[in-house]
């Protein structure tokens, strides 16, 4: 109980640090798009961590939920005239619905799950970008919601989504439910014998993770305001979220935040300063990390017997 209380305080400290940092940073660094994109990847890495870090299911097609959220939000803005925040929530609910439809994929495991999930995300992409859906999604012509373009408000909204996602990760990490998830991750049969409802727990995490990606996609669309299907369904988004989460360390709260924060900073810095060496540097770094830090940055702290949330 004392540990849980300490963990809660730790979680509150992480949330407060995140909030203060992203409120203060625009005052000292004017390129808000860099900070916004950093938060987007932090939230995505954290959202992916919810399902991968706590259940072991690696969703290669995680971008499908993100893109669904972006398009659902944009469609709601275009056709309903609802306040944009409600449209963002609509994006989250649309991703939740897609998560429910794809729920049976959880019957698969390992690489089969990842590939099936990847295929599902591509199906969504091709449906959205289909010419026949032009009146609804804009099809290949993309979608435009510049009437609600508000970079500062969408920045604040992304911060809220990031805090929400981190709070969920902290709940998974500290709660009895999360303990069940970790037991299930290590040995599902033993966990089931011990009373963990495996199917329900997996489905809940899957849907929560999908909803979070949908919310992130909705806010991202609000910030971008003019985009093509490729921009929100590119596999690069899934790959970055996975790499960032793995770099920091999955199954923890601070790992994906650290991973996304540091790697994205590095990405943005070399992307601006030495683009000609970008692929070489970035690729080398990832190979180095996989070889020498397979459990992510947080493993350095764990080795030093430090408590990691």
């Amino acid at each position, binding site marked *: 109980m004392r540990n849980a209380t300490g963990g809660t305080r730790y979680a509150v400290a992480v949330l407060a640090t995140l909030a203060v940092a992203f409120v203060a940073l625009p005052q000292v660094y004017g390129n808000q*798009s860099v900070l916004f994109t950093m938060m987007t990847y932090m939230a995505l890495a954290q959202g992916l961590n919810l399902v991968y870090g706590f259940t072991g299911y690696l969703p290669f097609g995680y971008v499908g939920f993100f893109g669904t959220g972006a398009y659902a939000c944009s469609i709601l803005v275009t056709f309903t005239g609802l306040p944009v925040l409600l449209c963002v929530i609509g994006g989250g609910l649309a991703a939740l619905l897609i998560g429910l439809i794809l729920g049976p994929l959880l019957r698969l495991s390992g690489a089969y799950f990842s590939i099936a999930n990847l295929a599902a995300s591509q199906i969504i992409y091709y449906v959205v970008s289909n010419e026949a859906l032009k009146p609804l999604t804009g099809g*290949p012509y993309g979608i435009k919601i510049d009437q609600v373009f508000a970079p500062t408000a969408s920045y604040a909204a992304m911060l809220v989504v990031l805090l929400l996602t981190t709070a969920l990760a902290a709940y998974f990490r500290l709660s009895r439910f999360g303990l069940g998830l970790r037991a299930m991750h290590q040995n599902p049969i033993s966990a089931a014998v011990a009373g963990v409802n495996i199917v329900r727990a997996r489905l809940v995490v899957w849907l929560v993770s999908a909803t979070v990606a949908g919310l992130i996609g909705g806010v991202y669309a609000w910030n971008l305001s003019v985009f093509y299907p*490729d921009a929100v369904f590119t596999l690069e988004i899934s790959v970055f979220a996975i790499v960032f989460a793995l770099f920091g360390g999955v199954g923890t709260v601070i790992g994906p935040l650290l991973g996304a924060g540091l790697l994205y900073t590095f990405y943005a810095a070399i*992307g601006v300063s030495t683009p000609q060496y970008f692929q070489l540097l970035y690729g080398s770094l990832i190979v180095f990390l996989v070889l020498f830090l397979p459990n992510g940055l947080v493993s350095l702290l764990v080795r030093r017997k430090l408590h990691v949330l």
Partner: protein
Amino acid sequence: MRKFLKHAWTACAAGAVASGLALSGGAAQAANAPSVLTIGTLYASSGPFAVASKGQFEGLQYWADTVNKDGGTYVKAFKKKIPVKIIAYDDQSSTATATTLYNQLITQDQVNILIADFGSVLTSVGIPLAAEHKMLLIDPTGSGANFFTKKTDYLADVSIPSSTVWPLTLGHFLLGQKIQRIAIIYDSNDFDASQAETLKATLEKGGVKPVYYHGVPTSESNYTVLLHTIAAQNPDAVIEFGYAPNDIAFLRNLSSSGLHFKMTFTIFPGQLLDLMTKNVGAKALAYTYTYPTPPLVQTQKVTYGPNTAAFVEQFKAAKNAEPNFLDVAGYNTGLVVQDMLETAPAFTQLSFHQALMDMSGKTTTLLGDFKINENGAQLGELFSVGQLVPSGNGNKMVVVYPKEKATGTAVYPAPAQ
């Protein structure tokens, strides 16, 4: 008389004060002039847009080198020549990266002039950002129909017509040739799909309904099955709208399939002929129709800058390479900026935009007539229809439509190769 003298004295005094103010204003303006004019832009060194983006960037850089050799570009607002400096970042064909880099150029580098990367996809994310920061986005080749739906002071498409008007001439050519059975295959992206839609509408208006009308993913690289499906419809003309890699795959597959159509049209032989010849082969390209673009077609009479022939000579001498359309597009973007700076009375984004509007309809550059509307869309610089006709070991471009620009007649039906 006394009253007259008093008035005359007052008028002279007022005139002297006004002249003094104007002179001191001019001096102050010159003193406020930046030592270099910063032009911010993006390019892609990797990813699907790399080939085209680097060509456009190379053309823009060539323009900057040319004006800097001459001491810079004349800026009317400061009444002096100022050297230009290009600040460019690599977005690697990624819209997410492009977003942050456009913002970097606007907020951190505070560039004087903002120029978009190649194409609609990488331009799209810059449009709301530029408008938010009240910066005019000079758009060289982003021709997406979505961009130009409402009046704006912060967007101007300068080097390529809006993609919705590209196939108008092609449509009229097909109707004029009385070709009834037409198949259209296009990539599912804004650039290609909007052309397909315009062509379909033009044909239907002329009483011709396409026998095949089908979209494929932009990543499509094997057209073999699709070609046989098209052949089953027995079309006389097959129109393929894609990016360069799609055109290459389409023409290669067509050549190896043994199929033959009386007319085949693709976009990029007219823009990147060397690349297409290298990848497809001169024989497979023979008799293919395309939009011929400068430098394959020449604009002789210009009102600003060199004409196409002079540019080709200068570029070849400086770079030791033949320019392609994207080099011309990048260079033309620089020329338009140069003309804009020479005519804008104030060094503000709104004044820049007004200068472009004033140039519209009165300016002809090596790309043709410069004509933008209030939404920022380019309505001039229209493309003709050309055909590649065998000549020696390769092919030469023959403009076949419209009549006033034609340099030869169409070989229709195309002989089997």
